[in-house]
């Protein structure tokens, strides 16, 4: 597609349930990123995939969070046993090459509300 596509755009879930958020990066982009945007918190890095390399998971806030990227394209962010503090906008982004300085393009985000 023309841009980074994320689904669902909005998700309301009950505390304790698992959720999956999907990201389809720009075609041909080898790098994929997940960020979390919480009110007043700015953008928090979660995880970064680059090609076939092991992902950088250093930003995942707890072991309830995981992500995978199948076939070097689509990525799924999974949050297990959701908590109210997980409520945020989850942003996916991609870039064409690895290495600092390559423009990162963002999707419109998945707004997660845990009730």
């Amino acid at each position, binding site marked *: 597609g023309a*841009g*980074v596509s994320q689904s669902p755009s909005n998700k309301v879930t009950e505390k304790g349930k698992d959720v999956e958020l999907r990201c389809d990066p720009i075609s041909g982009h080898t*790098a994929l*990123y997940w*960020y979390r945007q919480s009110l*007043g*918190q*700015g*953008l*928090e*890095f979660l995880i*970064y995939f*680059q090609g076939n390399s092991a992902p*950088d998971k250093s930003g995942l806030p707890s072991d309830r969070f995981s992500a995978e990227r199948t076939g070097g394209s689509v990525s799924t962010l999974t949050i297990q046993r959701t908590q109210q503090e997980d409520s945020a906008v989850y*942003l996916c*982004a991609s*870039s064409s*090459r*690895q*290495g*600092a*300085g*390559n*423009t*990162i*393009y*963002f*999707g*419109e*985000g998945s707004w997660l509300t845990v009730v």
Partner: protein
Amino acid sequence: AQSVSQHNHHVILSEAASLELGCNYSYGGTVNLFWYVQYPGQHLQLLLKYFSGDPLVKGIKGFEAEFIKSKFSFNLRKPSVQWSDTAEYFCAVNRKGGANNLFFGTGTRLTVIP
């Protein structure tokens, strides 16, 4: 550890006023610097970026930013704002030669009053 500080949380200006949004970073090494903008209901978009060379960089929609290495700053400016500039602005940094992952400030919300 790297950090990006945006001290202005919410700025309110009248149309035609001049804008300057502060951004300071703390990073152990040489950096690339970015400003992203998020208009209401839209996704983040790149406004401008600095990699090297002329420390005064120009971006879209009349925005510019100046990299002052001695002050670890990359402030965003626009001489005359418009109502359509109402948005949230994020400063970001990554390490030159490193991974492409960006570290963001907490953002500055700009409201322009017609």
